[in-house]
């Protein structure tokens, strides 16, 4: 919690005090914290606190209100939709290797623990693609693995996807109104289990959320800023774990040669490899070739070298 954050609370409450505690349309999630603090410090009565919360909750709920358990369920369905379009590669050795590497890397991210954990799967397609569903289900295409000439390069691909999970980029693709409507249904509901109508409404919000995420991930791509953040997270994960961060630039250089302009894969959903490399060298210095020890290179070749 930063000092700035507390100043923000203080400022929100100052506004509250000046306005004589009416329901304030401009207040967002801060109103919930603000209301608690206002009650605790005697600025507002508990009743007023409740009304501030209600007013705030209608407009202030964002993706951050989605619990890790709900993120897990969103991720499972996003993953199933991905696999509806891209067939999984039924290669136990390759998938096991991908999971040993990926789950190890996830331990070095800022979010090593998610509700259901990180799990990885190869997609059979030749397209150069990788997707990460909220909560940690990560899919890498055979075409993408072919852009990797070393374990360090493959580690960079996985670390970039772990970065998207850690930063919750998928959840942020859900439209705010959708999150609000789902949470409004939840708030209206009490202890009884959901009736048919609430379940139908929630399922509608769920379907919409899945649609928002898959459309962003598979068709439109994340913003340039999100991709840069995921690359930055990848560099951090590689450096902490002990892999060569040049794996990322090596992979991007190879990808540049492999992607087809105008294709519907990474070429469409990601910034150009050159522009990503330009950012990465600012963090790690000039591009250097990856030097992998013989044992590391041998196991990489054995697991996915002929994929």
């Amino acid at each position, binding site marked *: *919690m930063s000092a700035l954050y*507390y100043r923000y*609370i203080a400022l929100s409450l*100052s506004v509250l*005090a000046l306005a004589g505690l009416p329901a304030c349309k401009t207040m967002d999630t801060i109103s919930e914290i603000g209301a*608690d*603090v*206002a009650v*605790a*410090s005697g*600025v507002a009565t508990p009743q007023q606190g*409740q009304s501030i*919360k209600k007013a705030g909750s209608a407009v202030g709920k964002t993706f951050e209100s989605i*619990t*890790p*358990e*709900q993120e897990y*369920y*969103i991720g*499972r*369905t996003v*993953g*199933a939709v991905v*696999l*509806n379009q891209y067939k999984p590669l039924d290669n136990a050795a390759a*998938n096991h290797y991908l*999971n*040993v*590497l990926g*789950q*190890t890397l996830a*331990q*070095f991210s*800022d979010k090593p*623990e*998610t*509700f*259901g*954990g990180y*799990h*990885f799967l190869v997609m059979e397609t030749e397209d150069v693609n990788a997707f990460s569903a909220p909560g940690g*289900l990560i899919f890498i295409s055979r075409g993408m693995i072919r852009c990797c000439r070393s374990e360090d390069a493959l580690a960079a691909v996985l670390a970039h996807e772990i970065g998207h999970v850690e930063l919750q980029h998928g959840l942020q693709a859900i439209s705010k109104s959708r999150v609000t409507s*789902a949470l409004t249904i*939840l*708030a209206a*509901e009490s*202890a009884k289990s*959901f009736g048919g109508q609430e*379940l*139908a409404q*929630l*399922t509608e919000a*769920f*379907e919409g959320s899945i649609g928002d995420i898959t459309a962003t991930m598979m068709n439109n791509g994340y913003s340039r800023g999100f991709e840069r953040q995921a690359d930055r997270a990848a560099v951090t994960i590689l*450096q*902490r774990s*002990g892999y060569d961060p040049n794996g990322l630039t090596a992979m991007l250089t190879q990808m540049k040669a492999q992607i087809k302009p105008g294709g519907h894969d990474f070429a469409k959903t990601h910034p150009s490899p050159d522009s990503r490399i330009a950012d990465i060298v600012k963090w790690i210095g000039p591009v250097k070739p990856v030097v992998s020890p013989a*044992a*590391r290179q041998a*196991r990489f070749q054995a697991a996915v070298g002929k994929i």
Partner: protein
Amino acid sequence: MIRIKQIAATVVLTALAALAAAAATMSVQVKDAPVRATPSFVGKVVGTLAYGDQVEIRQTQGAWSQVAGAGVSGWLHTSALSSKKIVLAAGREQAKVAASGDELALAGKGFNSDVEGQFKSAHKDIDFTWIDRMEKIRIPAADMQSFLKDGGVTPKEGGAK
């Protein structure tokens, strides 16, 4: 203006005190979380905590918290913890509090297995077989350690921050 500043100062202090008190007990917000002997990914796993388990925070070191609860004590990565009390089977009163405030989170609410079930029955073409299968792939901590060692990969001190 002075009055507003006073209110703001009181509020900031109250908020700090409230946060300090709230930080003493936290809930496990993931299905299961490994507890380690030392605040590091390389620390030996001494036990596992489950979703909803409440733990007392003894101290924190970077992103690691020393916890005790549910018969286990050791270090847990903070990403596994929530300051909300997670209620696995909520009664009526708790559900009301959870709906109106930020102190409680109800397990199994909202997007849950029921909603997934509804989705599945409306989209029979979408197959979850491989999703279930990939979730079962869980690499033991010891295997990760030997994977790093055998590949000559040397993590920086402390691992995850």
